[in-house]
């Protein structure tokens, strides 16, 4: 199928190249969560710092927010059109910013890759040193804390993971909730 838009009730839908499959909502239930406040220091690589914190925790996955903080360097991606007829939208080349970056919003998922290793997925909004706002898909192993500590709040859970799996409909590898043994 060629990906295309359809409009129903005045709302655009996007039909991807792969066949849509039921169910449309995938979900798992977890009995409880563990809460963490993480403050990463100046000059910390955020991916490395966060994974070091999580290394000693018993969890399968986590979700959270960037509460506040600054960056000295970061790299993020925006969605662009591609020449691939089956996957006409993807992330483009990184936008790189340096110096005095202030976070204003951010969401984070800690999932698992195919080997079971932690995988970080983050979207965030921030202001550069010239006052320009930016938002997009943030690459956490290219994010260096600067100006002030970076504070994250995480909700960790066990027995369910956001696991990377191929998705035939969109033809992306995506995080899916799956049941797991207790870690």
């Amino acid at each position, binding site marked *: 199928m060629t990906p295309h*838009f359809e409009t129903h*009730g005045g*709302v*655009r*839908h*996007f039909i*991807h190249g792969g066949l*849509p*499959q039921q169910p*449309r*909502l*995938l*979900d*798992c*239930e*977890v*009995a*409880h*969560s563990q809460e963490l406040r993480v403050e990463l220091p100046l000059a910390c690589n955020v991916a490395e710092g966060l994974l070091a914190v999580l290394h000693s925790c018993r969890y399968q*996955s986590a*979700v*959270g*927010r960037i509460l506040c903080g600054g960056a000295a360097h970061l790299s*993020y991606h*925006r*969605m*662009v059109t591609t020449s691939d007829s089956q996957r006409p*939208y993807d992330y483009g080349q990184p*936008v790189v910013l340096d110096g005095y970056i202030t976070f*204003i*919003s*951010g*969401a*984070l*998922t800690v999932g698992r890759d195919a080997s079971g290793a932690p995988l970080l*997925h*983050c*979207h*965030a*909004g921030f202001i550069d040193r010239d006052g320009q*706002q*930016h*938002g*997009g*898909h943030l690459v956490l192993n290219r994010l260096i804390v600067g100006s002030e500590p970076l504070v994250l709040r995480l*909700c960790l*859970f066990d027995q*369910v993971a*956001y696991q990377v799996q191929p*998705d035939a*409909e*969109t033809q*992306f590898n*995506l*995080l*899916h*909730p799956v049941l797991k043994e207790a870690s």
Partner: protein
Amino acid sequence: MTLAPHTAESHVQSGQLGRLVVARLKPNEDIIDSAEALCASHGINCAVVRGGLGSLIDGALHYLGRQGMQDLHVPGPGIEILSLSGEVIAGQSRLQAVLADADGNIFAGRLQRGRNLSFITVELTLQEWLPD
């Protein structure tokens, strides 16, 4: 400036957080409708959004202005969800989002029901609120 007199008592509810619902929305599923459907299927009366991350085909926000609710259309596709927060109660959910378009511009407001459809995926995590 003169403050208007209080017309109602504040309502304070003590309680605790309960079960988590960890979900993925496939393409073309609306955020509010999906959040309410997830709560219904897990027997949850009230939930808070703990995580919301992914992309929308187009963004449809609104806010209360002098002339009533004002629409804020964020044309996509590939509108990134930077933050999602709020409370899920069947038929009465109020969810707020911060979104970014493909140029990196940021928009914020209350989500409109039925008009914020998942583009590629949305990771949505809800947690039950259990009043005492």
